[in-house]
């Protein structure tokens, strides 16, 4: 490894963090969690928000960390679980549910793959005092698996299946994650995109638009697919 590389700041964080701890985090910091996290993605959001089912557990009491994730897991005949690895799933698809989800859950940390638009951070995260942590890689499924001490519960397993159920995980030194959005709604990914965009015209030199265009197509290098 080249010697000139700056090493990143590493932080241990509770899954029920106080505001001061969150305030200290800057985008690009590396975070390891201690406590309890739960998984929740489109299946959980639809059931709780669109269909109005009561949450299976009091999340304000249990954990303030919502992980956009499905585990590699199975259920044994005696009801016990095999769960060795977890990996985040792309979060940008879930922004439509976040306003209601923050109100229902009291979450302070949303984790998943790839973050969301900074407009979403300003609209939903900042007013709720919440940050976004991205998984690393992707994905460090085995390293995250090592940080899981126990599967405390799998709610809505019957209704949603293994991939979409709400898994409650007791964790210790659970990571690494990277701070993608801080309490002010800054986005690490968007900062990096802007740095890269500066050089893209050179990379594209000599190419030209395809003969057959597509509806809605753009050659604006600042655009994102999300």
């Amino acid at each position, binding site marked *: *490894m080249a010697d000139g590389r700056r090493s990143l700041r590493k932080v241990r964080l509770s899954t029920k963090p106080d505001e001061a701890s969150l305030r200290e985090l800057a985008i690009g910091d590396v975070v390891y969690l201690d406590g309890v996290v739960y998984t929740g993605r489109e299946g959980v959001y639809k059931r709780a928000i669109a269909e109005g089912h009561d949450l299976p557990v009091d999340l304000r009491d249990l954990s303030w960390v919502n992980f956009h994730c499905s585990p590699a897991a*199975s259920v044994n005949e005696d009801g016990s679980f095999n769960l060795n690895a977890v990996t985040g799933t792309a979060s940008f698809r879930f922004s439509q549910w976040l306003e209601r989800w923050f109100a229902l859950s009291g979450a302070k940390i949303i984790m998943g793959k*790839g973050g969301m638009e900074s407009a979403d951070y300003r609209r939903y995260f900042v007013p709720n005092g919440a940050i976004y942590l991205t998984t690393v*890689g992707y994905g460090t499924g085995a390293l995250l698996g090592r940080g899981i001490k126990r599967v405390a519960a799998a709610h809505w397993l019957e209704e949603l299946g*293994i991939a979409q159920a709400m898994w409650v995980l007791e964790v210790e030194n659970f990571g690494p994650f*990277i701070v993608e959005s801080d309490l002010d709604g800054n986005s690490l990914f968007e900062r990096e995109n802007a740095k890269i965009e500066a050089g893209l015209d050179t990379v594209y030199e000599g190419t030209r638009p395809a003969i057959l265009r597509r509806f809605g197509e753009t050659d604006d290098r600042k655009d994102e697919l999300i």
Partner: protein
Amino acid sequence: MIAIDIIESSALTLMQKAAIEIPDDYLTGLKQAAAAEDGDLSSFVLQAMLENYEAAKEDRRAMCADTGVPRWFVKFGNDARIDGGPVALEAALRRATAKATHDVPLRPNRVHPLWRTDHNNNVGINAPEIEYTFEPGGDWIDLTTVHKGGLFGTDYRMLFPGDGIDGIKKFFLDTLIGFGKRGLACQPAIMGIGLGGSKDISMTLGKQAACLRVVGDENPDPKIAELEREFKELGNSIGMGAMGFVGKSMVVDCHIEVGYCHTGGLPMSVHAFCLSSRRATARIFADGRVEYRTDPNWFTPYMRRETVEWPMAEDRLEKSA
């Protein structure tokens, strides 16, 4: 005659190996990328991935918990015969997929597209996919499983001869950069490009180029091999690395496969086989021997043949000599 229980047990072993053990060729390629990477964040990510592969192997855990959409590629030696025939083979592969999903465990990703029904075993309508090819000579079958993520990093486009190499280059860059931002493609990846064929075969060739050729392998056509090298370099010159952070590692290797296409068109597909490039192969012989490896050796001279006939007679003569 190849026994069906050996096929099923080998298939189960392959599923475990694919999910847990990063293939050596990709690992070597990623270590080289990590050594060359100088972006702070990108370097951290690659280092974490290298640690993750070790943790997976040590603990026998899935390296990535998004174990993708597990699928099968079967190559038949022309003299291979399976106890129970192809229908028994397909049943054995479906059983092994379901059992591995529970035992490893894998993530049960496969659901009905409309009703979202999940059997929790990665088996359902048209799932897992089983693709076939054949090889002259040989009484063996090669089983390969690939666990590839299913959402991002792949695109298809109908280009035309007038778009030429520059058009191919642009669509390659568009796909890399579009899906590279925020690391949606889970780069650095083995990039597969399918050129030509019918539209669906263009997709298939690109997918197979990404998933079934190893890092360091080159297309036997020297001009295509030159393009592969050029495209690898182009991808790594974007200024982007792992997770879309500033860096220079996007492409661990680039593989191009071609098929004859409509005279007016130039269909193209681009595929990214991710940081957890999961593939494992076994050759199963009629006498019960099983040999495991990580190179599927899918694209053979026979598969890339251009002529009407294939000299089967010569092949037989060589074998008996």
